């Protein structure tokens, strides 16, 4: 049965990405699609090499489908193409050193390519996106209020939402829900109806590059709806990719 491999948060970490590609060759399933849900780049010295590796897959490797993430948006801000030209959000999270490192890590040419990426993907009944349709900054976790999680699914009209902003792996299901709504307008008497939802799910796909030595990602079968998570140890654990 074929699967999708869903990655996020590589953050320029080439070793981690190589480790995941190697792992993909080991998995029992046939993998028919490779998604990277944003944060491909980051303040990492191997960023340019990584982008090249992603854009030029080796013979026999899948062509990754990449969408925008929070770090890509920060690149746009630094290059005057974003909605936050002062890069206040980036400064807050990464400090002046982080800003400088990101500036050095991603070339303008790469930023131009990043500009061509999609905001997310919609396949079958699945939304694959970095944050949510609210934006790349939107962090969903198991602690997010359930109604907010449902909102993110309903906004996109998706049954399954894959997201990567938190960097966590999680799999939450919404088996059932209901709300009774009564609307009164100027011209119509009160009308009551009950709305229900069932069988929705939200998946945090993990992070490839965030934690040194440990990459996490997600396998999903759109045919059986099965979700599984993979953890790959690399580098210092003696897998031969060298320290970062």
């Amino acid at each position, binding site marked *: 049965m074929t699967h999708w491999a869903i990655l996020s948060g590589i953050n320029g970490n080439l070793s981690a990405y190589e480790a995941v590609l190697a792992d993909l060759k080991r998995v029992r399933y046939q993998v028919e699609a490779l998604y990277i849900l944003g944060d491909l780049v980051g303040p990492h010295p191997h960023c340019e090499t990584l982008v090249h590796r992603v854009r030029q897959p080796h013979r026999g490797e899948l062509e990754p489908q990449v969408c925008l993430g929070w770090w890509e948006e920060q690149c746009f801000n630094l290059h005057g193409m974003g909605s936050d030209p002062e890069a206040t959000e980036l400064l807050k999270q990464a400090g002046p050193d982080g800003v400088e490192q990101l500036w050095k890590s991603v070339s303008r040419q790469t930023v131009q390519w990043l500009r061509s990426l999609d905001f997310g993907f919609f396949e079958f009944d699945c939304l694959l996106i970095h944050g949510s349709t609210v*934006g790349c900054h939107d962090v969903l976790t198991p602690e997010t209020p*359930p*109604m907010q999680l*449902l909102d993110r699914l*309903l906004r996109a009209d998706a049954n399954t939402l894959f997201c990567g902003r938190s960097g966590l792996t999680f799999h939450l299901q919404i*088996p059932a*829900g209901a709300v009774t709504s009564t609307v009164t*307008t100027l*011209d119509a008497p009160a009308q009551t109806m009950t709305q229900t939802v069932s069988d929705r799910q939200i998946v945090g796909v993990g992070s490839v590059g965030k934690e040194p030595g440990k990459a996490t990602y997600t396998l999903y079968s759109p045919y059986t709806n099965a979700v599984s998570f993979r953890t790959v140890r690399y580098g210092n654990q003696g897998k031969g990719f060298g320290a970062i």
Partner: protein
Amino acid sequence: MNIAVLSCIHSNLAALEAVLRDIDQQSVDQIYCLGDLVGYGPYPNEVVARIRELDIPTCQGCWDEDIVDGLNACDCSYPSLLAETRGHLAHEWTNREVTPETRAYLASLPLTLQQDNLCFVHGSPHSQHEYLLPDTSAFIALERVLATGADTLFCGHTHVPYVRNLENSHLTLTAVHPATPSPSHSPTPLSSLKRIINAGSVGEPRHGRPHATYVIYDTDSQQAQLREVEYDYTQTCAAIREKGLPAIFAWRLSQGLEYAEKADDPTHVCER
């Protein structure tokens, strides 16, 4: 206590005066305004002056924001090319017309007002541009109320007034991974009655008649009364033409059609 809530005046002074007269005849203790004081209509400075004179707590609407920050609504927030062209004409006209004082006042407006268990916003708690329509998913509607922490959310922006009660809500959330010690499969009741009250539009109604609409809410009985006030809209229509705004705005006002139509995708929120 009775409160009156107005929204979307859109520089229509005659409509505002008519509504204020109507409020005078009701026993109203406090007035709130949900923004969009300016845009489309012929009297932006006069409307702002009147709201300030009466010291009405007001939150900022999307048009007020655009006049302060320059047009930063994305193209996609207009439902059609025609609406976009007209919206830009109205924006440019208003931008020329407003005084620095009016602009400064609009800039000072908060996005949200909160009073006890009532919350006041222009569009939704998440965005001045988001439409909460009577047929917006009840779950999305409930999320918007829950996000404010209030029991009753007052909004405008759609220009059609309504009251929506949301109750008997429950939602089951199960964590498959990381597995919780005892995953709960029983529905979790979410809240008691929550309510969205849309105040309609004073100056640019869209319910099919040209009359102004607003709402009176009794905080004790929690009853909302949707009010429709007739006024001489031909005065505003004449001023629209005289002051060089597109004549089609006058026609649309006289038909109870919004000057530019509402967005097709109400939950679409511009990324910019």
